[in-house]
C-alpha cells in the first residue's frame, strides 16, 4: 500500500514536471530532407530556421516562452514525410517550417491541416500544395507554374530555341515543373519531341540521352535536382551534345559544380532574385557561415519563413493554428528578401523568378 502510494505520488510529480516543461517552451517543427543526394540543398533551410529561432530566443523567445526546435529528417521520401509529420504532431509542435521536397510537403500538409497547425514551406514549389484550400498551409517561395513560365520564355524568346527535350525525375516537383514548362514552351510555338521521366536514383542517363541526341533538340529542360542534374550535364557533354541545359530551383546547389568540376557552361536555372548580395542579408550570412559553413540556395528562405511565422505567433498572441494563420495573412512581413505578404491561398503575393547561369563554378544572376 505504502509503496503504491509513493509510486502514484512520484508519478503525479513526474506528470506535473512534464506539464510544466511543456508549458515553458513553444515547439516549432523543422522538417526536410537531410540524408541522401538532396542532403546538401535540404539542410540549408533547416539551418536558416535554427538560426532564426536562436535569435528569437536570445531576445526572449515568443509569447514570453523559449522556442524549441524539433528537427526531423524526411529523407526526401513521401512515406517518411508522413511518419515525420505524425511524429511532429504528437511531439506537440505548434507550427512547422518545412518540408523541402514538394513530394513530401504535399502529403505532410494534410496531416498538419487535420491537426490544426500551421505549415510554412521554405522551398516546396509544386502548385498543388496551396491549391487544396488548406487555410493553414503557406509557401514562402515561388511556384513551379511561375518558374516554368519564366524558363520557357527565356529559352523561346531570349535564346530563340525551337526544339527542347524535357526530362524529369518522376517526383511531384520534377513532373510538375516540367509539365508547366512543356505547356508554355509549346504555347510559344516551340517543339518538345522528348518528354520523359527517369527514376530519381538512376545515374546512368545515357539511354535517354541517346533519344535526346536523335530528336534534334538543341536544349534540354531538366525538372529535377542538382545531383542528377550534374550527372546529366556530364553525360550530355560526353555524348557530344553542346546545347543548353536549363533547370529550376532544384538545380541550385554548389554540389552541382563539384560534379561538373566548375566547368559547366550554358547551364541556366530559375530562382528567386539574388538576396545574398543585398546589404541587409550580410549579417545573417556572417552568423550562418560561422555556425554551419557555406550557405545553401535556400538558407535565407528558411530564415525568412521562420521569422515571419514567429512574428505572426507573437502578433496572434496565441499558438492556435487558425489564429496564427489569420495573423500571417493580415499584414506584410519585413524579411531579408524584402517585404513579403501571403495571399488567400497561402502563396507569396509577389514571388519573382529570374534566370541564373553557371559561371566559373558558381551560379550567378544572368
Amino acid at each position, binding site marked *: 500500500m505504502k509503496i503504491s502510494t509513493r509510486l502514484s505520488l512520484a508519478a503525479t510529480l513526474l506528470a506535473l514536471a512534464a506539464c510544466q516543461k511543456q508549458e515553458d517552451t513553444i515547439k516549432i517543427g523543422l522538417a526536410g530532407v*537531410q*540524408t*541522401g*543526394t538532396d*542532403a*546538401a540543398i535540404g539542410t540549408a533551410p533547416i539551418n536558416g530556421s535554427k538560426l532564426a529561432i536562436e535569435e528569437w530566443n536570445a531576445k526572449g523567445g515568443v509569447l514570453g516562452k523559449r522556442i524549441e526546435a524539433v528537427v526531423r529528417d524526411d529523407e526526401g521520401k513521401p512515406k517518411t514525410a508522413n511518419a515525420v509529420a505524425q511524429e511532429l504532431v504528437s511531439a506537440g509542435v505548434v507550427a512547422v517550417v518545412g518540408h523541402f521536397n514538394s513530394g513530401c510537403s504535399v502529403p505532410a500538409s494534410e496531416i498538419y491541416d487535420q491537426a490544426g497547425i500551421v505549415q510554412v514551406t521554405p522551398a516546396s514549389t509544386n502548385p498543388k500544395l496551396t491549391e487544396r484550400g488548406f487555410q493553414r498551409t503557406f509557401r514562402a517561395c515561388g511556384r513551379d507554374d511561375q518558374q516554368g513560365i519564366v524558363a520557357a520564355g527565356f529559352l523561346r524568346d531570349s535564346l530563340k530555341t525551337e526544339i527542347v527535350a524535357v526530362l524529369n525525375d*518522376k517526383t511531384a516537383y520534377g513532373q510538375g515543373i516540367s509539365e508547366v514548362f512543356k505547356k508554355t514552351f509549346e504555347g510559344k510555338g516551340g517543339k518538345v519531341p522528348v518528354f*520523359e*521521366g*527517369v*527514376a530519381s*536514383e*538512376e*545515374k*546512368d542517363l*545515357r*539511354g*535517354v540521352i*541517346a*533519344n535526346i*541526341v536523335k530528336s534534334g533538340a538543341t536544349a534540354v529542360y531538366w525538372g529535377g535536382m542538382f*545531383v542528377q542534374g*550534374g*550527372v546529366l550535364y*556530364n*553525360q550530355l557533354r*560526353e*555524348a*557530344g551534345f553542346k546545347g543548353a541545359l536549363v533547370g529550376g530551383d532544384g538545380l541550385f546547389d554548389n*554540389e552541382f559544380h*563539384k*560534379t561538373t*568540376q566548375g566547368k559547366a557552361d550554358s547551364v541556366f536555372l530559375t530562382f528567386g532574385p539574388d538576396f545574398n548580395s543585398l546589404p541587409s542579408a550580410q549579417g545573417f550570412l556572417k552568423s550562418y557561415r560561422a555556425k554551419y559553413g557555406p550557405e545553401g540556395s535556400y538558407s535565407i528562405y528558411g530564415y525568412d519563413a521562420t521569422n515571419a511565422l514567429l512574428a505572426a505567433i507573437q502578433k496572434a498572441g496565441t499558438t492556435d493554428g487558425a489564429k496564427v494563420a489569420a495573423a500571417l495573412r493580415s499584414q506584410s512581413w519585413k524579411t531579408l528578401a524584402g517585404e513579403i505578404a501571403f495571399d488567400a491561398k497561402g502563396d507569396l503575393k509577389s514571388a519573382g523568378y529570374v534566370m541564373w547561369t553557371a559561371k566559373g563554378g558558381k551560379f550567378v544572376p544572368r
Partner: protein
Amino acid sequence: MLQVLINGLARGSVYALVALGYTMVYGILGMINFAHGEVFMLGMFGAVFGIGLCTTLFGSHLVLNLVLGLVLAVAFASGWGWANERIAYRKLRGANLLAPLSSAIGLSIVLQNFVMLAVTKGKVDFPHYYSDTLTKTFWTIGSARVTLLQIVMFASTGILCLGLWWLIQKTRMGTALRATAQDRTAAALMGIPVDKTISRTFVLGSALAAVAGMMVGMYQGVLAFDSGYAVGLKAFTAAVLGGIGNIPGAVLGGFVIGLAEDLTSSTLGSDWKQTTGFVILILVLVLRPRGILGERVSDKV
C-alpha cells in the same frame, strides 16, 4: 540503334558481374545474400578512397593509381564480403532458411547506415581526373559513340568471366567449390574444408562486385550510400532470370536485363525502363520456372 546496344551492353556487363556474386552464394549455400548490393556499394567507396590514398602517396599517376585503386577496392570489398559471412551467416548455417535471409536484409541496412553515418549523408564525386580520361576518350562508329570506359567495362567483364570459368572448372579450389555446392556433408567427408570454401566464395563474389563498383563509380560519376540498392536489385533479378545458382546464367541474365532496359528507353521511353526487366523476369519464370539456363530450382527462398 547501335548506341542503344552499346549502352545496354555496358549496363548489362555491370549487372552480370554483380549477379555472379548472388548466384555463386546461392549455388553453394542455397541462400540469397541480400547484402551483396551493399558490398558493391562498398567497392565503389573503396575505389574512391583507394584512389585518393594513392594520389596522396604517389602523386597523380593515372594508370598506376587506377590499378592500385582497383586493387584496394577489391581488397576492401572482399574483406567485407568475408566479414559478412562470418558475422551474419556462419552461425546460422544449420538454422531455418528464413534466419540467414533476415540477417542478410539486416546486414544490408546496417552497411548502408554505416556508410551514411561514417562517410557522408550526401553524394561523393568520383575523382574527375581519373574518370575523365576514360569517359572522354571515345571512338565513333557511324552515329554512335563508344567510350574507352565502356570498352574497359566489356573487356573486364569478359576477362573476369573467363577467369572465373577457369577457376571453377580447372583448379583445385574450383573443384572444392563445386563439390561443396553439390553436397556439403559429402564434401566435408572427402576432406574438403567446407567453411574455408564458403568463405572463398564470398570473397570471390565480393571482388567481382568491387570491380563492377569501381567501373560504375566512373560511369555515373557520383556515388552515395544508397547506390547499391538499385544495382543489387537488378543484378539479383538477372541472377534469377538466368537461373539462380547457374554461373553462365547470371552473366546472360545480366546482359538481357541491361539490353532490355536500354531498348525500352529508346522505344517506349525511359519512363518504362524500370519495368521491362521485371516483366521479362515474370514471363521467363512463368514459362521456365528455373530461369533461362537454370539447373537448380529456387524452391528455397
